[in-house]
């Protein structure tokens, strides 16, 4: 049993999972003592018909529902400030966020702003500035990946100043997270694949990175098992409600795990590929996860090897000699990526070189990699990675993942 010298663990949200979670919203609002929520979402969610399902469940029971359905993918402080004004104008008393990470983070920001009676979110930036229970907040993730419904952090951009503002407080977590299978049924296959691999990365990095603890470990192991049993299954059969729900639960478990143990190199470089080249987060995770495992193998071979068990079950785990288990984990992740690549007809990329932009041209050029490595040095997750990473190390991994070559383990400086 891993028992660190010191650790903290917290999951403040009540988690409701099921095929009919949405129908419980009116009752939940009543329990929370509120009656006039603002629903925050984006056009994608509206287009997929998901907002209509939420509204149907609400309007049968209550009259006043304010909707803001225009959260842009690059939501920022101005959007948060605007929604907060809308909230006040309509005398709302609670927030329901329906969407992916960007919507949920925006909702966290709005909640901080309206509850603390501030006019500018910027004033609440940093850790621990928010000290009181905020307004009742229900989050309904529509992707199974980010886990942001489980984290204590909100990341909101300030597009004017070109900086990311980070807000941390236990009170930012939603009061309730509803995981409803209907919310992810219509996700495009490539998004299901990428977000699923994001969740898998959360679970795996939570399990082998430096801030792991006995409670994050068990959440991570369960998440890995559920993702391994359900991701490819729902890719083949997207209407599998049971599979969708299991994946949503897995994503939440992985979110709880990494919110309490942090993540490592896969996220360090992934954030940077996202910021420098605009690659979607889940895609970065899928491409980089095998490299994260390879890079840290010599330091965490036992932990990485143990991840084989939830991936393949007891029999195959026992048959695999101890020293080969970690390598087998890496090859399984590569096999998963290959299967996802086939099922999505190439939309789930295997290497950064193959990712195309909206104009159909290659999104990342080899000369971008130096910038990616430079920017990655400043990412907070770098400190939680078991093996150290300097500029050369980051560039080496970025270059290998760009070309799709396995890491040359001899090049890893063992610090």
């Amino acid at each position: 049993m891993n028992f660190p010298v010191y650790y903290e663990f917290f999951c403040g949200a009540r988690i409701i999972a099921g095929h009919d979670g949405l129908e419980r919203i009116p009752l939940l609002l009543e329990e929370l003592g509120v009656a006039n929520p603002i629903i925050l979402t984006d056009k994608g969610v509206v287009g997929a018909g998901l907002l209509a399902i939420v509204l149907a469940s609400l309007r049968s029971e209550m009259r006043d529902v304010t909707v803001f359905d225009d959260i842009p993918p690059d939501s920022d402080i101005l959007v948060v400030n605007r929604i907060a004004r809308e909230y006040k104008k309509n005398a709302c008393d609670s927030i329901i966020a329906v969407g992916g990470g960007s919507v949920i983070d925006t909702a966290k920001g709005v909640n901080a702003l309206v509850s603390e009676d501030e006019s500018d979110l910027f004033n609440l930036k940093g850790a621990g500035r928010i000290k009181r229970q905020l307004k009742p907040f229900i989050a309904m993730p529509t992707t199974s990946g980010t886990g942001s419904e489980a984290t204590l952090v909100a990341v909101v951009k300030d597009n004017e100043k070109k900086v990311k503002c980070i807000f941390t407080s236990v009170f930012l977590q939603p009061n309730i997270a509803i995981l409803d299978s209907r919310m992810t049924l219509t996700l495009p296959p490539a998004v299901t694949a990428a977000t699923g691999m994001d969740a898998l990365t959360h679970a795996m990095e939570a399990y082998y990175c430096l801030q792991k603890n006995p409670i994050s470990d068990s959440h991570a192991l369960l998440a890995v098992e559920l993702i391994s049993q359900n991701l490819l299954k729902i890719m083949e059969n997207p209407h599998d409600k049971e599979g969708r729900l299991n994946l949503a639960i897995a994503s939440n478990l992985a979110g709880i795990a990494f919110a309490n143990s942090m993540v490592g190199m896969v996220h360090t470089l992934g954030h940077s590929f996202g910021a420098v080249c605009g690659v979607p987060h889940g895609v970065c995770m899928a491409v980089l996860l095998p490299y994260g495992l390879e890079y840290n193998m010599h330091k965490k071979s036992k932990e990485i090897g143990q991840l084989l068990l939830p991936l393949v079950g007891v029999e195959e785990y026992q048959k695999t000699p101890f020293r080969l288990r970690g390598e087998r984990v890496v090859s399984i992740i590569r096999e998963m990526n290959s299967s996802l690549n086939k099922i999505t007809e190439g939309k789930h990329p295997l290497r950064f070189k193959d990712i195309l932009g909206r104009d159909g041209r290659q999104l990342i050029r080899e000369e971008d990699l130096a910038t990616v490595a430079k920017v990655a040095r400043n990412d907070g997750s770098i400190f939680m990675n078991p093996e150290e990473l300097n500029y050369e190390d980051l560039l080496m991994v970025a270059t290998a993942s760009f070309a799709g070559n396995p890491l040359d383990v001899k090049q890893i400086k063992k610090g």
Partner: protein
Amino acid sequence: MLVHSDFYAPVKIIAGEGAMDNIAVELSSLDSCKPLVIAPSGTATIIRDLVCAFGETGMEIGVFSHVTGKPTLADVKNIHEIYTSRGFDGIIAVGGGKVVHLAKIANIAASSSPEILRQFLADEKIPLPQLNPLVILSGLIIDGYECSKYAIFSDKRYESPSLIPKMVIVDKYALSGVFSPEVALSSALVMICALDDYLTEKHSFFSRAYTNSLFGLLIAAVDKARKPGKWKLPLANSLSLTGFLLSNNGGGWGYQLAQALAAKKEKSTGECACALLPHLLELAFERCGEEMGRMLMPILDVDSVDEVKAVLLATYHKIAQEAGVEGINLSINNSEGEEMIASIMLEGSAKADCSRLMVRLSS
């Protein structure tokens, strides 16, 4: 596995070296800057350390350390008087069991009003307002309810999400003493709660994650029971997680049966848990041994399902041995058995399992 689930355990765990040193900062993050410490008598050393932890922060703390027997309304009145007259805004409960029950009940009066407490005691369904933060400085002797939504007062179990403490601090300086029989009996309660999760069909993935951690922590602690300094932190951690499970399942049938037996046979719930454990383990191995093995292999760092089973059995034996109750016989007769099954209102497979267990106990 129950796919439709509802799980809630909003207690922040702060565990390990220096955990107590963070208490002032953590309390202020909950907007409390003047806590009242509620402690049992005989905890002067812990209170001294606690006062030290607040040392340079400039925060004022008060101490109420007269908790002796079962919490009474007089205790609640005393605490309310001190709390309101001196302007406290949070409570730190030291240890487990009755101190925590008293702290939870007193917190209702202290941070809302005696009238609201009176209404709540008359009808626990009335919604409580947001209470001031309650933090537990974990001890080693528990009844399992500490980190749950329950409080026991005047022999009745009250329930409200507002009774859930905000935080539990697990620090070796607050964990004095040896692995005594009482500690072993607390461990038996922990183990029975974890087994309950495997034996009920109503568990969720979320309760299962905590259950697996709980097993890992408990087993690590019991294994090192004779090594000073090695077992206290994992054990106190597992004690906290017990409340998470109880909060969400109200006590599985194993735990409820242990309580029913305790009432009937005038023994402690821990002793009855010890008597039930070997039977519950056998049942769990039979019903879901493979699953338990698969889940616990990496956590216990062993390589086969059989090893997991062996470790679990060894843990039980050690607990029973340390508690001095190995092979305890509860001598239940058939009618007593049936009466107890009826009293805990079981359904479906749990009822069948419980009946089988009763037959074993009575033979």
